[in-house]
């Protein structure tokens, strides 16, 4: 996702929106995370803070997988 969208590397704590992620890209990002990890992100999980950075996404994915 990141390398397709952006022309420079992103650190795990970098703000994805500052790096150029748009609100439309959030759709692609959420769907890509769900596809990659074979999970459904619950409604309350789809909020800006959970997708602020790669580290935040990682935390979210771990939480959802741990709750299974």
């Amino acid at each position, binding site marked *: 996702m990141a390398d397709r969208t952006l022309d420079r590397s992103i650190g795990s704590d970098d703000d994805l929106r500052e790096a150029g992620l*748009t*609100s*439309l890209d959030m*759709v692609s990002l*959420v769907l890509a995370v769900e596809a990659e990890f074979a999970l459904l992100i619950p409604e309350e999980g*789809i909020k*800006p803070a959970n*997708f602020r950075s790669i580290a935040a996404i990682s935390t979210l994915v771990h939480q959802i997988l741990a709750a299974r």
Partner: protein
Amino acid sequence: MTLDPHAKRLLEMVAAGGLAPALSEGPDSIRQAMVRLARAVDVRDVPVASVEDRHVRRDLPIRVYTPRGAAGRRSGAIVFFHGGVGVFGDLDTHDGLCRMLADSSDCRVIAVGYRLAPEHPFPAALDDAAFVVEWVWAHASDLLIERERIAVAGDSAGGTLAAVVCQGAARTGGPPIALQLLLCPVTDVRGGSESRATFAEGFFIDQRTLEWGRRLAYPPGVDLDDPRVSPLRAPDFSALPPAHIHTAEFDPMRDEGKAYADALLGARVGTVYRCHGGMIHHFYCMAGAIPRARVLVHEVGAAAGQALRGG
């Protein structure tokens, strides 16, 4: 109805992304974002006999979709103009929709990559749209298209183009158009309707984005009441081709689509109007994420094909 659950989820994702693509960064940012969105939410698995990219002019590409049922034989045609407030959208962002329309209508679909603003402000897009309709008419036999079965179609700002091309053809004796197919069309760019206010923010296309596009597409000096800009403001609708007009329940453009249908009906133009419950603007291009959209687009295309065949 309530908002379709998949559409609702999609809107939540857009909202989680915060502001719309930085409009201040210029049109290329949102153009690219729309292409990436299409990669994520468009359908890709719609079978067609062939897809051919060609040019009617050096700066005017078209994409011709031939459905399986029309391979090697003549068919009706749908000339299609994509949406994108006149600033974004292209042949790729609406590829899945065009495939579905070709497949379900059994007609060839000719998608038009008309020139975009602000590089090419009004009336460049309209000139291109009218040019391609005349070109298709003139080249119908080469394209295996039945001249008496040519529809003009578009979504959102492309719906504006389709409606205005039909008005122009009726006024000037242009090519006879058998059907106008309008999906969530913008028919009044001033946008004073109730739905524009109700769904001004958080329903995929925000008022802010609409106004930004309007400023770029229609520079100062262009009269927004000109029927070529706002086809709902035309003085007369009586000589227009039959229409299929589709709106979405949770769409800022819902009321102006309905108003256009009412105007045509008032002028005794054969009109089919359908408001798709639970749907949002652009649903027809997001069938990969909104399963119901695929069913609805199939119905839209099948009805258009049937109308073109005189059914």
